[in-house]
């Protein structure tokens, strides 16, 4: 491929950007310079203004002040269409592909000038030629719904390249990828920047990705510019202090050594079906001891979420047996309360709360039918419910305008903290955790991991499903890998490593 025929990377500069929402200054005089062909990381906590800045650049918002320069020339971007015309494309954290269409169909319909008649023979030939020029590929002949998260992410990036967008903004691109996939996708993009084919601006809060792939970085904090620099001259410590300022971060809880504790959770021969009737998990056997965290690694969509759903009562079990402390366990309210089973599901706002109910009500989901909130089994008293919420809000430092505010008004970290407060404030014997830190900021992640470790140290049996291998490696006592709906590998954490786990995740590794 000759460099001259390929479209060239473009540079972008944002100067003095300011955006005010009502009384809230979301962006205050923020500047950012991304030279053509560089890989730039935009760091910041949740709510630091990263997305607002990017949305101003993309034309979703009109900044109240400031200007955007594309290749050194001022350019007014009034809407996303004009951003696309300027060659700026964005890959969102949540996929924007149409699940029922194939990759090829998704690429073709994404073109701004739709044609009345699509000649598929021509289009397919053009797509094949396009893919030949690309350093990576994604399957184009299957419906997107059947693709893995990594394949979808690659397809999203391919879509931007197909549309000739040469300035690509990635919004936390790796939150849905396995570490291997993340490294692959980011590595390929970095190679493309090196060759001057694209410029990348990546929103992230993972330092590992910044140090491994980015050239420069800009840090935002509370809507303001907090620092920038060249990645290789900037230490992780200084990045983190720019990012979180003087916010205290909870120390990681130490792992207390346990020996020969009894088995608490016994999952024996469990089968369950997916919504479409096909088997989702088959013959799952797993024993978890008291004071043990078993981490389940796997590429998303290999049955981990079905397993969590079976254990938490959201999906019926077709065959098999669950036991806790040797007693049969059916995931209903009475057993959960008696056997002290709790859970931290992924995306808590969607899976663990009722968004329009208040914080106090959401915090009472476990306790509303027990004294002191309930009396005579039926009567519900709001006063003790509110008192419980006030205590939990103080203890878990939930930032909320009031216990009566709808929980949907809280930030992601505070929603997760509210759920944590509800699920972990009592005695916990079994804890089912799924991707607890998905999309959360640095300080919240540290705190939530410390809370999980606390529960383990107190003797809870913890099942941790995570798509973040680092999380599994840092928390687990044992690792299990799920692939194709089955557990294909179980090992003590000290006797395995990232490469072995990765090989089993990919379905091989014998």
């Amino acid at each position: 491929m000759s460099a001259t025929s390929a479209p060239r990377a473009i540079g972008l500069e944002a100067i003095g950007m300011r955006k005010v929402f009502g009384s809230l200054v979301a962006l205050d005089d923020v500047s950012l310079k991304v030279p053509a062909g560089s890989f730039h990381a935009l760091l910041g906590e949740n709510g630091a203004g990263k997305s607002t800045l990017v949305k101003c650049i993309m034309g979703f918002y009109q900044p109240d002040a400031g200007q955007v320069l594309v290749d050194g020339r001022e350019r007014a971007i009034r809407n996303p269409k004009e951003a696309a015309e300027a060659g700026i494309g964005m890959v969102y954290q949540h996929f924007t592909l149409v699940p029922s269409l194939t990759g090829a169909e998704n690429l073709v319909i994404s073109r701004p000038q739709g044609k009345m008649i699509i000649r598929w023979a021509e289009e397919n030939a053009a797509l094949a030629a396009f893919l030949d020029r690309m350093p990576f590929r994604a399957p184009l002949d299957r419906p997107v719904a059947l693709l893995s998260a990594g394949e979808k992410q690659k397809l999203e990036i391919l879509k931007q390249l197909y549309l000739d967008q040469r300035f690509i903004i990635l919004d936390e691109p790796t939150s849905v990828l396995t570490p291997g996939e993340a490294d692959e996708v980011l590595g390929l993009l970095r190679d493309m920047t090196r060759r001057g084919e694209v410029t990348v601006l990546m929103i992230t809060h993972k330092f590992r990705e910044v140090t491994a792939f980015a050239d420069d970085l800009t840090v935002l904090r509370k809507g303001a510019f907090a620092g920038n620099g060249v990645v290789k001259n900037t230490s992780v410590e200084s990045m983190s202090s720019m990012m979180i300022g003087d916010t205290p971060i909870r120390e990681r809880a130490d792992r207390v050594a346990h020996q020969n504790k009894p088995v608490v959770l016994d999952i024996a021969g469990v089968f369950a079906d997916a919504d479409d009737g096909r088997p989702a998990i088959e013959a799952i056997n797993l024993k978890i001891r008291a004071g043990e965290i078993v981490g389940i690694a796997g590429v998303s969509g290999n049955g981990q979420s079905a397993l969590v759903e079976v254990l938490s009562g959201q999906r019926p079990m077709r065959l098999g047996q669950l036991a806790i402390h040797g007693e049969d366990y059916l995931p209903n309210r009475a057993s959960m309360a008696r056997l002290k089973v709790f859970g931290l599901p992924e995306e808590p706002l969607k899976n663990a709360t009722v968004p329009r109910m208040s914080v106090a009500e959401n915090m009472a989901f476990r306790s509303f039918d027990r004294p002191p909130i309930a009396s005579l089994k039926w009567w519900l008293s709001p006063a003790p419910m509110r008192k419980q919420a006030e205590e939990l809000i103080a203890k878990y430092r939930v930032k909320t305008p009031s216990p009566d505010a709808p929980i949907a008004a809280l930030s992601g970290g505070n929603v997760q903290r509210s759920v944590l407060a509800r699920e972990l404030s009592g005695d916990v014997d079994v804890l089912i955790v799924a991707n607890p830190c998905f999309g959360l900021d640095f300080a919240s992640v540290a705190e939530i991991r410390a809370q999980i470790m606390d529960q383990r140290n107190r003797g809870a049996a913890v099942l941790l499903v995570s798509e973040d291998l680092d999380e599994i490696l840092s928390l687990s006592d044992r690792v299990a890998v799920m692939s194709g709906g089955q557990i294909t590998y179980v090992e003590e954490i000290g006797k395995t490593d990232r490469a072995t786990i990765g090989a089993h995740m990919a379905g091989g590794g014998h």
Partner: protein
Amino acid sequence: MNQPVTVPAGMTASNRAGGERLARFRRGAEAVAIPLLALLISAGLFSIFLLILGKSPVQFYSLIWLGGFGTPFSWSNTLLRAAPLMFAALAVAIPARLGLTMIGGEGALVLGGFAAAAVAVPMIGTTNPLVMHALMLMVAMAAGAFWIGLAGGLRYYRGVNETISTLLLSYIAIAIMNFFVEGALRDPADPNKPSTKTMLPETMIGKIPGIDVHWGLAAAVLTCLLLYVLMQRTTYGFACRIAGGNPRAALAQGLPVGKLIVSAAMIAGICAGLAGYFEVAAVHGKANASLAAGYGFTGILVAFLARHNPLAIIPVAILFGGIAAAGGIIQRRMGLPDASVLLLQGLTVLVLLASETLYGRFRLFNPTIRTERT
């Protein structure tokens, strides 16, 4: 983990409590103001329709006032209609708390009324009226509970859309009544339209002392109050709100979502069945086609306008009872067909559904509105 509070605690606590009261008041005001606005807009649209016909909107609305609320006679007409509307609206509002749009109140009302009339037939003039009424009440509630409960079960266990199934079940219920009323249970002594045997007037439900309205109105108001308490202040109501707001979260809390759905649907059916019972036992004395008078459908509108709040259903049902009561006088004085009131109701439904998007948009009611940023 507790952080020391640096501001004097008493100060902040009292300020916060005041702020919360204000915020709650503002949210409450929003829930009143937006439906009122919708009512005004639909009245305005209907005025345009009247002007096109060359009729005076002023005369129309003053006749509604006169026919619905202007005299003691019109008040009793209004309240007579408000009672079944309250029950019918509850039949929509309770499932709505579980996220279900069930619109089968008409059918459950007809079936409940028919069941009550049918069970009464062999007892007319022979059995103690108290025993007869107890039996009628029970079969009316059971028939309604079975009918809507069936739609709830289909919804949870078979995934059948509850809106469609309740609507279709309504037509089946009306057909069942017609089948028996025109056949096996038709009273040969009744020369007019096909009906079941009429109850003796002295054994029918009497009037509330002082007003010219039967005891069904008191029962309806009491049911509204009871169901408000059930939904707001009991563990059952709380569980329903969790299951209605997020079924996945409810399952993860071990709540029996299927049982909650079926039981709420049955409560809805009981309310509709009660409406049917009072229509038979206090108004008609028999079951015939007049049972399907549209209360079940107007009840849907009442429930939506009341935002599915059982307390708010009481005044809204009275308002709609008044509009319906004024239908006759409008027909006589303005030469407008009876159906023009239905047109007004239909317009109100549309404007009301459109106004749902207004919630949370006004800073007056939501001082903390801000655009999310990440």
